């Protein structure tokens, strides 16, 4: 069972939840209040939704041996543009205006994703540098959109994206679930996932077997931009408002952590969307756990560093080999062979 690739991340997640349960026996309680689901577990899912979204987009990018550092900036740009449009409306509660704001923001994010894809697939620039450009410039663009101010909004329909409920369940969870479901269906029930792994595993072999790897690469960056855009809207709706400096800060790092924890290889060729979701939930649970235990929140980063280090070490084959060798000085196969020879 320990061989299953999700064994360690799931165990780590369960261990954290167990710690929470011991510290606060009512932690697992989920109740219905005013027609809404309430509880710590629901909060973890609700607050983790943006990271899950960004993580799903990033996973497909990483599957093609790429990386997208710009998602944090895209998150900020998406929220900034939507809030700028909303703040200029005479009636912020108008559904029509909200739809236009959301459409504009997502449209821009698609274009930003296409820009990344263009740099990587057409100009052939290394993904880490290609997306570094937008990572640096993007936060400047977001500040340009908001004119350096924090734009606050009051739009009811827009805020529902972050804190609204539909059939008892928070809307943000439903959106994350829908994106996860659709993308899993697409990559696992069609050949798309296989093709992505082929592009990431060995681009040259993929090209020789007739793959349009350029088009696929372009596609994953556009999808990554779209996911980051939705996450940006969610974060802005939760705030509620646009903070160009802090919205999505370090979310690219968290997303990359989430997928690494979930067993997706940064070297491409193997990915797991489910693993990324587990990884994202692990990171969010960690933050919640630190609060539950009453550890001062200044130590959150410290705890995060240690837990991530532990999970990465346990998953590292090199580390496991070393530990095993220390336990058994002579590897079993070698000693067996020695016996055979002497016999």
């Amino acid at each position, binding site marked *: 069972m320990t061989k299953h690739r999700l064994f360690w991340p799931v165990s780590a997640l369960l261990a954290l939840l167990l710690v929470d349960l011991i510290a606060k026996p009512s932690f697992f309680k989920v109740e219905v209040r005013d027609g809404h689901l309430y509880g710590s577990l629901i909060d973890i899912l609700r607050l983790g939704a943006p990271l899950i979204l960004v993580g799903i987009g990033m996973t497909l990018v990483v599957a093609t041996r790429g990386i997208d550092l710009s998602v944090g900036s895209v998150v900020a740009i998406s929220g900034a543009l939507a809030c700028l449009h909303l703040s200029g409306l005479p009636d912020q509660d108008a559904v029509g205006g909200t739809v236009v704001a959301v459409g504009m923001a997502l449209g821009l994010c698609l274009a930003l994703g296409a820009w990344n894809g263009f740099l990587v697939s057409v100009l052939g620039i290394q993904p880490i540098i290609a997306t570094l450009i937008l990572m640096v410039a993007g936060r400047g663009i977001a500040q*340009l959109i908001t004119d350096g101010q924090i734009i606050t909004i009051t739009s009811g329909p827009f805020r529902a994206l972050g804190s609204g409920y539909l059939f008892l369940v928070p809307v943000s969870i439903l959106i994350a679930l829908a994106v996860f479901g659709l993308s899993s269906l697409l990559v696992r029930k069609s050949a798309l996932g296989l093709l992505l792994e082929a592009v990431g595993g060995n681009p040259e072999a993929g090209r020789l077997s007739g793959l349009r790897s350029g088009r696929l690469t372009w596609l994953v960056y556009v999808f990554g931009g779209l996911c980051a855009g939705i996450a940006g809207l969610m974060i802005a709706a939760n705030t509620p408002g646009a903070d160009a400096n802090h919205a999505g800060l370090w979310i690219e790092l968290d997303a990359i952590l989430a997928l690494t924890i979930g067993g997706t290889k940064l070297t491409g060729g193997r990915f797991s969307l489910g693993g990324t979701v587990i990884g994202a939930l692990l990171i969010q649970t960690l933050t919640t756990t630190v609060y539950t235990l009453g550890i001062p929140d200044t130590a959150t980063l410290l705890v995060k560093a240690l837990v991530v280090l532990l999970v990465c070490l346990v998953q590292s084959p090199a580390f496991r080999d070393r530990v095993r060798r220390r336990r058994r000085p002579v590897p079993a196969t070698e000693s067996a062979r020695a016996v055979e020879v002497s016999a």
Partner: protein
Amino acid sequence: MTALARVTAYRPQQRHLPMLATLALLVGAYAYGASQYTAFGSGQVVFNLFINYSWLLVVAVGMTFVILTGGIDLSVGSVVALSTVLSAELLGEQGWPAAAVVVAVLAVGLLLGTGMGALIHYFEIQPFIATLVGLFFARGLCLTISTEAPSIDDGFFTVIAQTQIPLPGDSHVSISVLIALAVVAVAGYLLHHTRFGRTVYAVGGSEQSAVLMGLKVARTKVSVYALSGFCSALGGLLLVFYKLSGDPLSAIGTELDAIAAVVIGGTILSGGSGYVLGTVLGVLVLGMIQTLIDFDGTLSSWWTKIVIGGLLFAFIVLQRLIARR
């Protein structure tokens, strides 16, 4: 051959082209500034670049070694902040002597760097992830030690911070500038005149070939991260000399500035090609852009980021074009 013929016959080597482009950009930006603002023409503007960015220069030099081996170090900003917080804490709360504080801060940087290097080499954790853990860990330590930014009034630190070294033409530099230039000189020597330096390039070119050639890959890989940790700690000390305070939230995003400076300086992010001198030019270009925007006065601060992004794009495309020819 006459001197003139030698000049006109000069064709730069291809691998020098990105660096020469950066130099041209730097000179061009300075000339533009001097033509627009009279105060810009004084030599002090150039010296101020060194004074204001000596700390970033030291950090970027460390980053150059890491990037030359094909790695990356995301932890530098956090280590810089940790150095400033540690300096303030040890000098103020603990009352340590200044010399002991300097040694302790540098040792912590070296230790953190070595730890990350060991994780990367011996446990095969991706440089990106290992140094990301370092980023969180060092920033977490900062916030655990102090959430405020106390100022530093230690005699030794104040003297270093305030001493001005006069230069001809009514200008001056700070002691930090001399330290940064010394670091650049040592780094240049290490990289271009020692076995260690050649191994750094070899590992960046192809790690597997380097292993097969019998080069000391393990030692070199761990060393470059140790070196980067040390440079970040030293950069942190220079930042303390510059600001005389220890702020746990300082230097956020420094890793991006350092990486941008290295790339603009002509070093290729996949490793194996680049120069320390290019990194110096890269840092000066970043500083020059900021200075131009400051002088203009009407442009908002976010234009710095947008312009740096544009420059990154231009230089990366230039490198692609050179590589394709």
